[in-house]
């Protein structure tokens, strides 16, 4: 038992563990499972994706069955489970009804052309990940829209997209933005 705890400690960073502890403390003792969303978010911030190894470590740290962590991590679109998705910036263009009617397909084509990748891929320089088929993000009145990292951008045009991608490239990583 002790051996595996040591392992968990090295797999999860101190920052991740502190974050998880902080969230666990906010829930009643027998409801600590509720902190799982936050725990996975902590890992996302650190690695930009969640590896199976980290999920297992979270499961052990929080004393949950591994599958309970896999279920949650694979359910929410804000978690990426594929290492390929671990780019500095994550782009999610809504392709649901309202956005589609307002031209999201063209936005998607434009981004694919600009970055030279298809939806679901990352740029070779690790700068951008283009998420596949994002569902309605509840900003239909500003369609077409996209989410760049954690920020909503609405009423998109090709020019607006170009400017956004450019500034993202300059401003560096998601992580920096989050903490600043």
């Amino acid at each position, binding site marked *: *038992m002790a*051996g595996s705890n040591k392992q968990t400690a090295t797999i999860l960073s101190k920052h991740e563990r502190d974050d998880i502890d902080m969230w666990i403390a906010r829930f009643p003792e027998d409801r600590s499972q509720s902190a799982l969303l936050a725990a996975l978010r902590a890992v996302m911030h650190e690695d930009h994706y969640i590896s*199976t190894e980290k999920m297992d470590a979270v499961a052990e740290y929080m004393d949950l*069955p*591994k*599958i*309970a962590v*896999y*279920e949650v991590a*694979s*359910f*929410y*679109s804000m978690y990426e489970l594929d290492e390929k998705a671990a780019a500095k910036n994550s782009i999610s263009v809504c392709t649901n009804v309202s956005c589609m009617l307002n031209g999201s397909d063209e936005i998607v084509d434009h981004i694919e052309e600009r970055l030279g990748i298809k939806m679901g891929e990352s740029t070779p320089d690790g700068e951008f990940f283009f998420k596949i088929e994002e569902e309605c993000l509840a900003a239909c009145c500003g369609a077409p829209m996209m989410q760049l990292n954690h920020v909503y951008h609405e009423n998109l045009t090709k020019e607006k997209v170009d400017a956004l991608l450019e500034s993202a490239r300059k401003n560096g990583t998601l992580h920096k933005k989050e903490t600043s």
Partner: protein
Amino acid sequence: MSKTNKNAEDNLVTISINDIEHKAKAGSMLIQVADAADIHIPRFCYHNKLTVAANCRMCLVEVEKAPKPLPACATPVMDGMKVWTKSEKALTAQKDTMEFLLINHPLDCPICDQGGECELQDLSMAFGGDSSSFQEIKRVVVDKDIGELVSTEMTRCIQCTRCVRFGEEISGMRELGATGRGDRMEIGTYVEKSLDSELSGNIIDICPVGALTAKPSRYQSRSWEMLQSEGIGSHDSVGSNVRLHTFKNKLVRVIAGDNDSINECWISDRDRFSYQGVYAKDRVKSPMIKKNGIWKEVDWSEALETAATMLQEVNPDSVGVLASPRATVEEQYLLQKLMRGIGVNNIDHRLRQIDFHDQENTDLFPNLGMSIADIENADAVMLIGSNVRKEQPMINHRIRKAALNGAKVYTLNPRELSFNYDVTEQIIASPSEMVTQLTLITKASFTLSKKKIPAGLKDLFKSVRANKSAKAFAENLMNAKNPCVFIGSIAEQLPAYSTLRVLAHVLATNTGANFGFVGGAANTSGAWIAGLVPHRKEAGQAVNEIGKNASEMLNHPKKIYFLLDVELEADADNPQQALAALNQADSVIAVTPYANKKMLSNADVILPSAAYSETSGTFVNIEGTWQSFKAASKSYENARPAWKILRVLGNHLDVKGFDYVSSRDVRDELKELCDKAEDTPKFETTGLFAEHDSVNVKSLQRIGEVGEYVCDSLVRRAKALQDSQPDHQAVQLNTDEIKKLGLAKALSADEQKVQVKQGGVMVEMPLVVNEMIPDGCALLMAGTKSSGLLGSAFGEIVITL
């Protein structure tokens, strides 16, 4: 909260289903009331032993005043409720649900093992349309390999989550889950992984579609071609009800039967998949005699005559009879009647036991002391020397239910074990220290109860010094309302079994706990009742002359051995000693379904017997329930049911009273003797404490408990089960002990092998690190191939590089 619930439960309400009035418990779900009234409501996700998920929507029914149809599985009944299960509204809803469920279903029934017994197939016959509005491409789910026992075809899954809930609620291991979302949701393990639970096969039975089917029987036959017979599980002492499926007279599949007071609707993987061993390669086709070292097939009369002559020619004192505790009551009773009829008293079935001091003081048979179902109501359970989860999975299931209800569970074992519920405390004591630990606790219980210490115990009590943790332990038992003290198979194998048993009994009496035995094979109880012990005849009646017990028979070799379905290299405590005894014997007569190499080299007459599915008979379980069963198929080739072999052998030997026509006659005779027997023996503890065999172990002590899948001749031949447990053939030590013994080097090598020496024999076997083994001990399971060359299961061993 619980109080109001209780009051509500007593309240009956009146509801009407399809315009007929029914009384129902308030708070129960509509589907339960309908089921009780035999009104069928279609369902997929609902299962009466699992929590309600209400996710399939197949059970929609019309309820008065409700705007939309309601799911019957999740709608509590209310007084005056009016329900229609077959109205137009209900039927439309059910039909529409069916259409949705079939959107992504592959409809590959012709190549699906579930075909013909599929709930989806049945309900689509009743509610399905002949065309679908869904014209798009169906999804496909990639299968994962989840081990040797369960085969997956997840494209067929309808996400009812029965299997997921089973893992969480019944087997206590969440291994399957629903990953992904929406139309991409999949049921699976996410990562490739074998299911680990000893109950995993039950998900095959509860999966309503063909997503989870039995791997070993895959594509063997169609369900409508099979014949079903009721049977009894033969690998533990619970007597789970099973259903045996035969195809062209061959046993091809086993599924769970229902018996709420025994196994509910679950069975262990061992009872489900052991059938594969029935047709093992070394199954014996015809009677055989060995002449000048050469085996020759002969007819039955010649074989029986030869056996009879052998038995007649020697002094009965030099005959040893060893029989399996898995044999039926009928076989056991006839065997002892036959042997005692010719003057043989050396009769035993306790092949793994080495301490027999207290045999006179045993009840009619070692028993649970309560009903299996009652274990659920315990609020404190103490397990002594028992890996109950692996040995008696259905008893463990009841203990788990108790634990989930708040019962505290304590264990005293030679190694740490993994349980599928919270165990309050596990005391780990090397086999030789178990008596000390139990003495401590028992002593503490007397300090607390202030009752008089039984005579003879005083010396033992003096030998230990009270400590706090023992006191806390005893206190917990005393404070419980329904405490149970159980002693198990590991304890039974120990050199100090009788002392442990007496202490456990005294502890139970003193703390007001139920005392019970939770070990044994399918018919250990029957063996005692039938008189298959050297010191008692049938129904616990006294013998004129006490014969030798199993250990004595092998320790002081006999001239003739008569074996009933036993393979001593795996079934006896000390294989080395047992094989040597057979080796030196003049003749060995074996009634057995199988003959492996060892059997062929040691035996002289082989009388092939039917396998468990090929004979009628009776097993008596650990709570004392007699369960009879019929043969599911004909005997293999020229093999015969053992009771018939014994009956004819009785005739050959001119023993009186051997003219039974059916196995029922035999059972009825024994039953009658039992009913007539006036004073059957009761557990007595007086005068036992002094006789305590202590073992002095200088170096390394072996923990030789019997592996889950090696406990008897049938399961040892069940391929899928064997393939799912590779570690059984290894020796396991903790890291410190490995270092101490200088074996660390073996771990870094490609093949991690070490030399294990016991009783002068050296065996090479893999080394596995297991931190749950205490210092000074090595886990080396009994019953395996390599342990068949070694000595006593809990003896001393030496391990070198």
